[in-house]
């Protein structure tokens, strides 16, 4: 059961719209604008918020959010690498090595710590040679950033010590799972570890991380409903579903994303097999006119006809899979939402074409942009660059502040 790639003859040629093209100069101009945006936000953080976790872009100061570990600094490290800013990259690496201390008595989200801290440290570690950091002998299987990653991962491991193998949502960096911690974790919080943990295992040679991540992934799938849908929240002690709404968005999203990316990165056909089975059910019960709705996981009855901002990762995953046709159709819908509001609101009521009250913010989510990137790389169709430029323009217009970029709270007054 190998990773399947669907190739439909002339698929790219005939389906959708085509842009009239973009000149090289326009591309470079847009690229430099993106670079400028990154530095505006990054320098704002360094200037006003470091060593706190995040910047408050309106009051221009910092505060701690997910833990007290200078989250943005670590999170932005690989972007510095992408921007090829070697001097700043080296400076930050040294800063992290010097200052990193994860032996503290704080409760952190296992999920956020994994994707942001572990992900940031590991990609920084793998990029460090290219960025001119003096790597030690044995790199990439040894190095200070890798040791810190291992340290962080070891502190997360206690969360995985459950009867089902699915992790708790919160862990104390010093004492493990806090007493009285709720055993309810959302599906994404259970199944979003394999990329970071798998990489860590392959680099350190210690299989335990990959094993716990795989066990958690299988844990979710083993508890799927009879029609192959998974719910929103699960009790990690009993395996009983606490929220049975099934969809591809909030609470579930990155579970599917990591199945595909994990399968590709770590050459795990078994994960792809799970995804293909899951996708068949999703297409059967949730897919309507290139939208994805929400339905009950047991029967597949539609409960909410809502598109969520977080769902925008899906076309990117389909593009990775090779199903460009479906991916294009879907992203055109999402882009239409963008064109209507200037953002993708958290919730978008599909039949009414409106954003419900209190669900109309845009916390600068990257999902749609990421999907556009994959689609552009797959097709080289300038339409997707144009869509990206649309996003760029409205963020610059609305979300930019003196020291960074702010969440858009409401799309209408």
């Amino acid at each position, binding site marked *: 059961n190998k990773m399947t790639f669907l190739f439909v003859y002339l698929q790219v040629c005939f389906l*959708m*719209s085509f842009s009239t093209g973009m000149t090289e100069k326009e591309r470079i101009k847009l690229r430099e604008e993106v670079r400028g945006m990154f530095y505006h936000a990054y320098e704002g953080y360094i200037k006003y918020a470091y060593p706190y976790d995040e910047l408050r872009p309106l009051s221009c100061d910092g505060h701690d959010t997910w833990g007290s570990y200078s989250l943005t600094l670590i999170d932005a490290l690989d972007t510095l690498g992408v921007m090829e800013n070697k001097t700043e990259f080296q400076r930050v690496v040294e800063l992290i090595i010097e200052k990193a201390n994860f032996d503290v008595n704080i409760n952190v989200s296992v999920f956020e710590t994994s994707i942001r801290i572990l992900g940031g440290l590991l990609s920084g570690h793998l990029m460090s040679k290219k960025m001119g950091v003096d790597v030690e002998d044995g790199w990439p299987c040894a190095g200070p950033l890798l040791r810190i990653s291992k340290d962080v991962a070891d502190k997360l491991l206690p969360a995985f010590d459950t009867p089902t193998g699915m992790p708790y949502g919160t862990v104390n960096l010093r004492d493990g799972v806090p007493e009285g911690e709720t055993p309810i974790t959302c599906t994404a919080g259970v199944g979003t570890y394999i990329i970071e943990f798998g990489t860590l295992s392959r680099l350190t040679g210690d299989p335990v991380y990959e094993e716990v991540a795989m066990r958690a992934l299988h844990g979710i799938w083993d508890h799927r409903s009879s029609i192959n849908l998974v719910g929103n929240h699960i009790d990690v002690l009993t395996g009983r579903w606490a929220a049975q709404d099934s969809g591809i968005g909030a609470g579930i999203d990155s579970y599917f994303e990591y199945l595909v990316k994990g*399968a590709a990165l770590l050459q795990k056909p078994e994960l792809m097999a799970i995804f293909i089975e899951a996708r068949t059910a999703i297409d059967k019960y949730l897919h309507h006119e290139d939208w994805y709705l929400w339905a009950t996981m047991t029967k597949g009855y539609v409960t909410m006809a809502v598109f969520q901002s977080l769902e925008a990762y899906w076309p990117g995953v389909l593009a990775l899979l090779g199903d460009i046709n479906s991916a294009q159709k879907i992203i055109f819908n999402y882009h239409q939402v963008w064109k*209507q509001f200037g953002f993708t609101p958290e919730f978008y009521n599909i039949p009414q074409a409106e954003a419900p009250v209190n669900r109309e913010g845009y*916390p600068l989510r990257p999902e749609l942009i990421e999907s556009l990137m994959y689609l552009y790389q797959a097709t080289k169709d300038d339409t997707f660059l144009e869509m990206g430029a649309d996003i760029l323009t409205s963020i610059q217009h609305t979300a930019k502040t003196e020291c960074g970029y702010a969440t858009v709270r409401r799309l209408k007054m």
Partner: protein
Amino acid sequence: MILRSKIMMACKLLCFLLAVVIVVHSRGPLTRKVSSPQPFFPRHSLVSDFYTGDVAKLTERLLGADLSLVVYYAPWDRDSQHLRWEMEKAARYHHEQIYFAAVNCWHPNSECKTRYKIRTYPAIVLHVRSVSGTETKALAYGGPRDAGHIIRFLSRALHPLTHVASHADLARLQMEHNAVVLGYYDFSTVKQLPRGFISYYLASLRSLQHHKTSAIAWGVVTNHKVATALSFNETRSVHLVLWNTTLVFTNAASSNSEGMSNWVNKWVDETTIWVDIPGTKSMALHSVLQKGPTLILFTPDNPYHTVNDPFTVLREISLDYSNCNQSSRVSNLARYLSSLRAKSRIQLRQAERVCRSYLQNQLHILHLSKQQFNSKDETCCGSEPSSEAGTTTGDQQSKVCDMCTHPTRTLTTPEELCTNPISWEEDSGLLHHVNKLMTVFSDSCRHLMLQYSPWEHYSVCCQRNNTLAKAKSSYIPHTPEKKEAFDVGSGHPDDRIEKLVALAAEDQCKRLFHGSLVAPHSFVKDQHPAPDITGLGCKTNKTLTFVAVDSLRHGDVAEKLGVNLTTREPQKTAAVIVDVAREAHFIMDASLSKLTLANFIINYTHGLLDRILVTGHVDTNRCKPSQICIQELTSENYLKFTQEMGKMVVVLHYSSNCAACTTVGHVFMTVAHMARHIPNITFARINILTNTLPWNLYFQTLPSIIVHPHYRKSDSSVFDSTLPLTPANLMSFLVSNLDPSHRLSLALSTCRDDCHEQVVQAAAVATTQLHHLMTVTTTKLQDVLHRLVKLKETPHEIPHWENHYQILVHTKHLLVRDIKTQRVKLNHLNQVQKLVPSNSNKLLIESDLLKSLQYIIQSKSNSKKTLESSTLHNEL
């Protein structure tokens, strides 16, 4: 619902925490109100900007003009921002006839935002004032958002109806349009407008929304005689004149505009259409292609041109092709079309003559600009207001930013730069000259230098910024010197008519000039009569649909089909037949003419065309012999490369858009490295997204690895996709596809020093064993022979004598075969012992080894006993 949302909130992960909060502040989230609306257009713009979203004021103004074009924009929207420029250009062109306005329909609490719900910004709407003057009818424009197409739309909206005064007028309309709607309205009897005429007028405007490319003409008959000649029964009746028939709308008198345009849309039947591919989600092309094989003509659709020669050729061909019952009406129409084409060329030349002074004036401006265009460092300097003019407050004119651009394109020839200005004095070639001149400038320069840049206070080139501005301001709209082409007969001179004629003449010149900036006229060269294809469409089961696609805007569609539009004649014009059901497409090689197009269709109908295999770019990086490298193949060289005798080729079929393909590269490279000692083996890969391969090389899943063996090319085999793709699995797959000689050489090539000794030892041991075995076998044989002799001596006395005898004979045969095998093995082992030096210091000459190996293998196959080298390998 409540329970679920509670649980969702409890989830500390991805779930909505950020949704409401900008910053979690001790005092609660800090938020900022949206700033007050800012002007979006510059102050002196020809477009009135209602940036506060004041619809009431806008409506007031709309009622003051017959036609108004309104843009409902959102200031954050990129398309809205781009549209500003295009609107300015369109306004410059048409502001005397049409009122241009823009309204901010996004700003919270604004009237526009609360009143209208706009799904996609910007919305462009044409408002037509009703006869009563108290309301407007809104018609959305959905076409391309560039000035050229907007101007074309507006020009048509200004003149949606054509007066049909004679049968010849109808014939002309039929030639220029796919279908003609005719209405008979009698203006002589009543003082007011005839009833139903307004509906007819609105219906004609409505059809502009559906038929953006002038497919349908709307004619009005007013003369009773003409009406009778055209077989109209009564006034207020409507006919639809199609290519092969004429339909009568019986409910015309009682229908409103919607009913009328619905009827037309329902019955309109065209042999060929323009397919517009909007920038949004659309199935326009898809739905055409699903119907069956389709001939797509890629050709420029210049919005400023009224005639399109390649498209007319397509119409001629499609009329003949669909003319099943040999109707003379259809064949006459096709004949007229070709005469029309001949005429339009002459008309263009005439128009060029008439517009001489206009064009010269424009060229003068261009030349002035060119002089300031610093061609040495290809820098074009200009000043223009900041693109964020809409967001700045107060005086935009004072906020002018310098803009310098460094175009990347290089000039093709130096001659182009030094065109002699005197040459534009000549009558002909003016348009050609405009085109040539334009190629000198970079895109942004063109933008700046053209006189219709929207900003009043702009200047070109920083160092000398007055010249052009002066040239511009000194430009006075003039009347063309020649009027003969527009003579309306020898009637009494009327001021208004003269003015109209002058306006029409200038309009023609403007069109010529602007059109030549977009794309030159393309004319088809017809030298030979085309073969007759009348009614061919009904004689085949592969009936074609004919469509045209604008190659200026959708050139990438052609590119993806493997058409290089730049080398085409006439420019950017190519014909492609796409057959989705058979998953094939065919490209016409010859340059477009009626003859070549007809032949192309005939060849397709008879199945004489070859399926086009789209091929990607050829990889120029050649592999150095010392390197391990993966050759990048294309569909062009794939077969030649893989079918070469004596060469084994391992090909990775991948696609640039499959994630699984990106992670097998290192496995493939590792195996290529391991197999570097196998002679005549090459590793290659092909991106099947950009390269079409024959059907037998088509794979359902990717990545796929196929081996084309050394000699028996038909025995290619594919790596089992159910196995994990690891170096070990891939290697054993390769080895199993090697012929014996290469397998042996692979086995020995991986062998050094210690291994050699082991080989020699193993060979010695094997030899001893074989000797022993042979002795045993020989003894057995002797025994059997002995028993046979005995059995012969005592015939028929022992029961089952026959059986005994046969068993013994059979055993004898087996033993003899064994001995032969053992001898061959022994011989082979001796060879190996000779080849592999027992002394490790002695260097092994690989080529010698290989030669000897070849010899062994050959002798082996001569004796028709193949010794499996894998057994040897195992022994080793």
